[in-house]
C-alpha cells in the first residue's frame, strides 16, 4: 500500500494556495488575449489590457493578483490503495492553508461563525471535498474562491418540464443580475442534475476544468458554446462598462437526477478563476 505522510500534504497545499493567488493560469491568459482581439469597444479593450498587465505585475513581483485571496476550497482525489500516515488529513490540509496564507502574505478573509463573525486570522477552516477513487493516485486541487463572485451565485430547483430552455433562462438571469458586481469578465460554472447540494458541488467543480476543454458529451459541449455566446450578447462587458467580453468561458458538469427534479446551480467566478493542482 502506498503511504503518504501528512507533512507532504501540508507542504503541497501551502504552495498551491500561494501559487494560485500569484499566477494566472495559461488558459485564462489565452482567453484574455482572444477576448482582447475580438473586442471593439474602447473602454472594454482598455480594461482587458489592464487585467493582463495586472497578471504580469503579480507574476513578476510575486504578489496576489487580487486583494480577495479567497476562502480555500480543497478537492482531494484519493486512491483507495493510498494510506495517509503521520496524523489527521483534515488537520494537514488546514495547516497547509494556514502556512500558505501567512507566509504568502495572503489576506485572511475567514470568520469562525457566520453570525458572530470573528476573523480566525489564518484563513482556516478550508472547504474540503474528498473523492475516493480506484488505484493509488493522490491528487490535490486548491481553488481560492473570492466572494465578490461567490455572492452572485445562485441555485434553482427547476421542474423537469422546464427542460433545457429553463436551464438556459436561469443561467442568463443569474449573469444579468450579477451585472458588474463579480468583476466581469467572468467564468461561469454550471451544475445540472443530482440533488440540491450535488448541483452546487458540480457548479464549483466545473470551475476547475481548464477553459481549453469542453464537456466530453457533445450536447453539453454545444450548450457551453451557446451560453457563452448568449452571455456575451448581453453587453455587460468588462467591469460592467459595456462590451463583448462578459464571460471568458462557460463550463457545465452534469449528474443523474430524480424523476421529479431538475436542479441547476450557477457558480460565478472572476476572470482569474484561480486554481492549481498537484499529484503526490
Amino acid at each position, binding site marked *: 500500500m502506498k503511504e503518504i505522510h501528512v507533512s507532504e500534504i501540508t507542504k503541497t497545499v501551502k504552495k498551491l494556495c500561494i501559487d494560485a493567488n500569484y499566477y494566472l493560469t495559461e488558459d485564462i491568459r489565452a482567453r484574455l488575449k482572444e477576448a482582447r482581439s475580438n473586442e471593439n469597444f474602447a473602454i472594454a479593450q482598455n480594461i482587458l489590457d489592464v487585467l493582463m498587465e495586472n497578471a504580469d505585475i503579480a507574476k513578476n513581483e510575486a504578489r496576489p493578483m487580487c486583494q480577495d485571496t479567497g476562502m480555500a476550497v480543497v478537492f482531494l482525489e484519493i486512491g483507495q490503495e493510498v494510506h495517509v500516515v503521520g496524523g489527521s488529513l483534515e488537520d494537514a490540509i488546514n495547516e497547509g492553508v494556514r502556512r500558505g496564507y501567512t507566509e504568502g502574505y*495572503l489576506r485572511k478573509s475567514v470568520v469562525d461563525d457566520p453570525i458572530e463573525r470573528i476573523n480566525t486570522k489564518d484563513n482556516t477552516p478550508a472547504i474540503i471535498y474528498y473523492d475516493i477513487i480506484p488505484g493509488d493516485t493522490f491528487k490535490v486541487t486548491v481553488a481560492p474562491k473570492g466572494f*465578490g463572485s461567490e455572492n452572485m451565485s445562485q441555485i434553482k430547483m427547476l421542474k423537469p418540464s422546464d427542460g433545457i430552455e429553463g436551464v438556459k433562462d436561469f443561467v442568463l438571469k443569474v449573469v444579468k443580475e450579477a451585472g458588474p458586481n*463579480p468583476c466581469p469578465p467572468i467564468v461561469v460554472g454550471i451544475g445540472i442534475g443530482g440533488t440540491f447540494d450535488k448541483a452546487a458541488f458540480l457548479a464549483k467543480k466545473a470551475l476547475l476544468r481548464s477553459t481549453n476543454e469542453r464537456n466530453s458529451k457533445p450536447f453539453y459541449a454545444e450548450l457551453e458554446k451557446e451560453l457563452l455566446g448568449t452571455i456575451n450578447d448581453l*453587453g455587460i462587458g468588462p467591469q460592467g*462598462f*459595456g462590451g463583448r467580453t462578459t464571460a471568458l468561458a462557460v463550463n457545465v458538469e452534469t449528474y443523474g437526477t430524480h424523476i421529479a427534479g431538475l436542479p441547476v446551480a450557477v457558480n460565478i467566478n472572476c*476572470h482569474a478563476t484561480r486554481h492549481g493542482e498537484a499529484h503526490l
Partner: protein
Amino acid sequence: MSKRITMPLTKEKIEDLEAGDSVLLTGTIYTARDAAHKRLVELLAEGKDLPFDVEDQAIYYVGPTPAKEGQPIGSAGPTTSYRMDAYTPQLLEKGLKGMIGKGMRSGEVIEAMKTFGAVYFGAIGGAAALTAKCVKSAEVIAYEDLGAEAIRKLYVEELPLVVVIDAKGNNYYKIGQQEYLETQR
C-alpha cells in the same frame, strides 16, 4: 483623456464630474468595508464622533492583503459596494463626498448622493496588484482588531478610476452598456 482630481472633494470638483469620466485621483483617502461601516454607523447612532472627519472625503471599499517588507500596502483592489449600501446614506448626510468600489448601488444610496452631492467611483476589480502601485503610504487609524477590515488612511497618486454614478444620479453601468449595444445594431 483623464481628469486629474486632488482630494478633498469640494462641491466644484463634484459638479465637474460626469458618469463615464476617467479620473486620476491624488491625495488622502480612507479605507472601510463591511465591519468598519457597521461600527461607524453605530457611533453616529450614539451621537459620537467618527474616527476621522468624513466631510469632503472619500472612502475606498478595500481590504488589502498584508504588505511585504518595504511596501506600503499589499494588493488593494475594490470590494463589491452594495454591501455598504445600508450604511452609506448616513455617511453622505455627514458630508462624505466620494466612494470608491465596484458594482451596483441601491436606489436609496443614489438618492442620497443626489441630495448631498456625492460621486461614486469604480476602481478596476481584479487589478489589485496594479492598483497597489498608486498607494504611496498607508496607516491604520482605527479598528486595528479588524485586520484587513481596519480603517486605513491612504495617500494615493493618480489612482485610476471611472465615475460610475455622478451627483446627478447618472449611472455609467447603464449608459456604457447601452452605448455598446447600440454599436452592435
